[in-house]
């Protein structure tokens, strides 16, 4: 199989990674090579095989839905990591664009 530049642009958009034209061409070759190698899985007969989604053997692990205690230091620690802020608030670009 072979991926196209349009495939790479679609994947990069879904993955939220901006790419230069040169990078698009590079990743087109790279992903084509990786998925080419992976084609070998097609030869395995998996008709009656269940999917493995986890390997713990544990089921339905639950805990009480309780509010965990927190203090002002924790809040300050988290706020100290904000890349941009206004007062105590996290500052981000506008989510919606005006038409």
């Amino acid at each position, binding site marked *: 199989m072979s*991926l196209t530049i349009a*495939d*790479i642009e*679609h*994947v*990069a958009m*879904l*993955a*939220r*990674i*901006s*790419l230069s034209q040169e990078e698009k061409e590079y*990743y087109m070759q*790279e*992903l084509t*090579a*990786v*998925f080419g*190698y*992976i084609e*070998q*899985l*097609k030869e*395995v007969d*998996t008709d009656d*095989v*269940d*999917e*493995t*989604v*986890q*390997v*713990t*053997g*544990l089921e339905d*692990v639950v*805990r009480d839905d309780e509010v965990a205690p927190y203090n002002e230091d*924790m809040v300050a*620690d*988290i706020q*100290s*990591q*904000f*890349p*941009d802020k206004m007062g105590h608030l*996290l500052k*981000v*670009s*506008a*989510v919606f*664009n005006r038409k």
Partner: protein
Amino acid sequence: MLNTLTIKQAAEGLRAKKFTAVELTKACLVRIEERNEELNAFISVNAEYALEAARRADERLAAGDNITMLTGIPYSVKDAICTKDLRSTGAGQILDNYIPSFQATVIDKLEQAGAVMLGKTNCDAFGHGASNENSMYGPVKHHLDQTKVSGGSSGGSAVSVADDMCIFSIAEDTGGSIRQPAAFCGIAGLRASYGRNSRYGIMPMASSFDTVGPMAKTTEDLAYIMEVMAGHDEKDATTVEEAVPTYSKELSSGIQGLKIGIPKEYFEIEGMQKEVREKIEEQLETLKKLGAELVPVSLPYTKYAISVYYILVPSEDSSNMARLDGIRYGVRSEGDSLIDVYANSRAHGFPEEVKRRIMVGTYALSAGYYDSYYRKAQKVRTKIIQDFDRVFDEVDVLVTPTSPFTAFGIGEKKDDTISMYLADVFAAPPAIAGLPALSVDAGADASGLPIGLQIIGPRLSEEVLFRVGHTLEKA
């Protein structure tokens, strides 16, 4: 040269008051000072923090109060493990300035035991790699030959132990990240059973594969570390309730009658270095002389392991990496719109290999491809697990090489993604099945580079793996 001691030797020395934890810590810090600029094993060194912890350990030792095997023992931590108030970058630019507000449970446990954290070690960014060349802070160099890679992703941890900059290290293994660098650097490293150690506070890569484990100079040391770090954690719902054995107790009880499976597929791989095969075969002879029974077995689905691994891991990975977007923490780039802020932050913050895996995973999970890639790989994963289940009805453990070759040259595989992925060909299968696997030193090739031997066991069989590893190291 206190920094060259094992945990066992150092713990005995501390208890006998031959030296103090502060002296031991200073010896490691001096070694780091001498060697780190060349080898690039540590991203951050926290000398003041370490000396303070060492002083507290000395008080504890003087009072004879609540002393453990790790009290006063200096160690390093892979930088993809969160340490409270200490910078944790995961070796990725996007977290260059990140200071966690919380700490991994395993590190809490080590601190409670009195161990002394020296600093954070270099790795492939967020665990993406098998050579430590994918770090935003540059590659880690092999301590015996600086033109060679350290292995990865936990290359800094491996070199920090092998070059005597610390006594042990805590790292992660998703598909070989502890075992392969341990093999390349000639030390011991354990991938614990999935669910044995808490992963709370670990930067996640592929959640159904990720494990945390120890790296040390001997198997015996790994046993002491696991006695402290293993166990259930309510903050990690994948941890199991089973009691943690006293792993060090049965180390010397030998391997008489133990059935060791030799999977033929692991010895037929193309491109395997001749000396690797020879050394492993020599070690198998040793095991036989010491009373083990060698049983040829077959794991026919081994050849699909890398394909399964490189679909499932990037898929889970692309979801986990989505949290790194420069919004709430980390390094944010400018952009005209919110989408551009995400896309630019991630473009600048991730090295090439991270982007490659995110895109592979995103494509495999995207509309129209989910069934043919992701679901298919999950089914072949089941076949690989069934292979292991079947052989473990017949044998107690499996012995294989850890890697088909010894440490390769820096840059040698950089332009050949598939060949780099095949570096994990022996390490990935037990990870796919959630099994424990131990790598121990098995000698060296003609140029003096170490060769690793891998022992794989059924779930929660760490005690048996340690017994085999320890027996080989003492032989």
